[in-house]
């Protein structure tokens, strides 16, 4: 049983144009994506910019209109049409955004920022609210006195933690983190990643972790899905993806990670060239006429690869 299950999700954006703003075509940002998340685990969505990973995350939480497909959360369908009836699903799924500088209202105090979800869903007295916010801030390692400060008084890492405090305020079960550390320096990044792992255990959270940074993905995720042009090319455990990639696109992506050992420079250069040559030669075998990936086929219990029918 899946905790969150996405079935054949499609998100197409219309291209408007012409005299009356007619729809001329569609951009298929997400085109037939299926995956499921296990409770308490971290699922990583990886891909280059434009691959549709953020759109997938936003569609799950309802920020993008879903063209087709179904999303089940704890066996209830939460696809947009069915959502009206179950608005409190919004309590259970929260989002952490990429940029801690633009995702916090600069004119609001920390108290108001963190209390906003509480005000929407729970009727607390002012005193209770204040105590809850202070508890949350303590949880994310900020001093309780911070409630009267404004976002600009905090560093990037601290701001991202305010964003996390807001996301966990309603005790959600699933957090969608869209590039949560891309805007941060390495040392601050370490702080946020450690912290996300810590509260995962404490609050029994499930993460959908969206990132283009493969080092971070490997560090954080149990399962990984690789996206390319709105489709999955490969899915598997972190080990399978990094140690035994099967699809040429994944191979190329993994090979492109800069190696931290300067002694391996020549070796890596050669390896990358080989992979690139293979990528160019085998491109037509792995992608269809439109340059899209085929459907996923299982090659083991957990490892799925997008291979053509004939296999």
């Amino acid at each position: 049983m899946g905790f969150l299950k996405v079935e054949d999700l499609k998100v197409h954006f219309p291209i408007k144009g012409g005299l009356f703003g007619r729809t001329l075509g569609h951009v298929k940002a997400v085109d037939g994506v299926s995956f499921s998340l296990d409770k308490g685990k971290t699922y990583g969505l990886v891909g280059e910019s434009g691959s549709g990973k953020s759109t997938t995350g936003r569609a799950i939480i309802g920020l993008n209109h879903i063209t087709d497909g179904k999303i089940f959360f704890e066996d209830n369908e939460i696809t947009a049409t069915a959502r009206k009836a179950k608005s409190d699903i919004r309590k259970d799924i929260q989002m952490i955004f990429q940029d801690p500088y633009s995702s916090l209202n600069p004119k609001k105090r920390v108290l108001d920022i963190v209390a906003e979800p509480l005000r929407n869903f729970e009727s607390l007295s002012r005193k209770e609210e204040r105590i809850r916010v202070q508890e949350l801030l303590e949880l994310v390692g900020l001093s309780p006195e911070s409630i009267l400060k404004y976002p600009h008084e905090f560093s990037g890492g601290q701001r991202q933690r305010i964003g996390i405090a807001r996301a966990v305020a309603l005790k959600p079960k699933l957090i969608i983190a869209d590039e949560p550390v891309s805007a941060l320096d390495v040392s601050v990044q370490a702080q946020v990643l450690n912290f996300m792992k810590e509260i995962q255990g404490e609050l029994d959270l499930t993460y959908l972790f969206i990132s283009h940074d493969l080092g971070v993905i490997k560090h954080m995720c149990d399962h990984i899905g690789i996206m390319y042009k709105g489709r999955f090319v490969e899915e598997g455990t972190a080990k399978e993806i990094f140690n035994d990639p099967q699809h040429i696109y994944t191979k190329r992506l993994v090979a492109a990670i800069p190696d931290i050992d300067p002694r391996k420079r020549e070796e890596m250069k050669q390896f990358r060239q080989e992979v690139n040559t293979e990528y160019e030669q085998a491109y037509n075998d792995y992608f269809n006429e439109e340059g899209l990936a085929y459907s996923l086929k299982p090659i083991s219990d957990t490892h799925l690869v997008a291979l053509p029918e004939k296999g």
Partner: protein
Amino acid sequence: MAEKLLEIKNLNTSFRIRDDYYAAVDDVSLTVNKNEVLAIVGESGCGKSALAFSIMGLHNRTKMEGEILFKGENIVNISPSKLNKLRGKSMGMIFQDPLTALNPLMIIGDQIGEALLLHNKELSKTKRKEKVIDLLNKVGIPRAEHVYEQFPHELSGGMRQRVVIATAIANEPELLIADEPTTALDVTIQSQILDLIKDLKEDMNSGVVLITHDLGVVAEMADRVAVMYAGQLVEIADVHTLFEEPLHPYTKSLFNSVPNANEEQEKLHVIQGIVPSLQNLPRTGCRFAARIPWIDASQHEEHPELHEVKPGHFVRCSCYKHFHFPEESKEEQHHGIS
């Protein structure tokens, strides 16, 4: 023997905040040789970009002291017209964000052509176009004739960065300054752009100053590395020494805070505190001391200096001799990658 291209001697670059000047680049001395990549590493706010901008003379309303010798000639505080003759010709710069570095209203051909025109007024229009298309081919842009007529918004991020690079190398500069050239790009494109910079460096025998916070990029690209913290250089070494045997506590901390794709680590190291802001910089004593409070104050020097511990390997302050990470015993400390 390596040929010196750029020599920075005791450079101070100070910004004015209200009525006082604060040094963002504090007594930095460095050399860059021909056909060499020097990487400058540090967190944001450490003065890496301020240093790069100082070399290019892109700051205004700052106080600059010390010397920057470019091929033996001091270029600190020289007249703007003299500087303009150097910039874009002998020195090229690749900026971090290709979208803001390009003029959105100008076609690609004209932007690169402008760089050529400024330094060679005689170049005829047809010759110029030929050269621009040459450059576009050189940086690996497919269908160069077509891209020539396009606007920046019609290109992808990787292509835009290639255009920025083409502009920077239009006049075959001897010194190329790359300020986080791949930070805004995806990994596969990053590796292509890095290869491109490396190849161009070989072709033109230029010196490259590579500014980055990504240690993976440093390991792939650099010949020598300078680590910067709070405006000062804290460690300089060739790339192998630095990765195998980092000495300064800041360098070690940086290494331990990166999720390493080859190694399983449950927890990443977090550097306590934050990079102090310009006004709050401690101007005396070891500037990193506040972030490693478990190291006794007596281990730091009163006036930390760069010590040459091995030929070519410099470390600031004596605290590195006694440094250890708080959670572990001294014997098991992490020594870089080995």
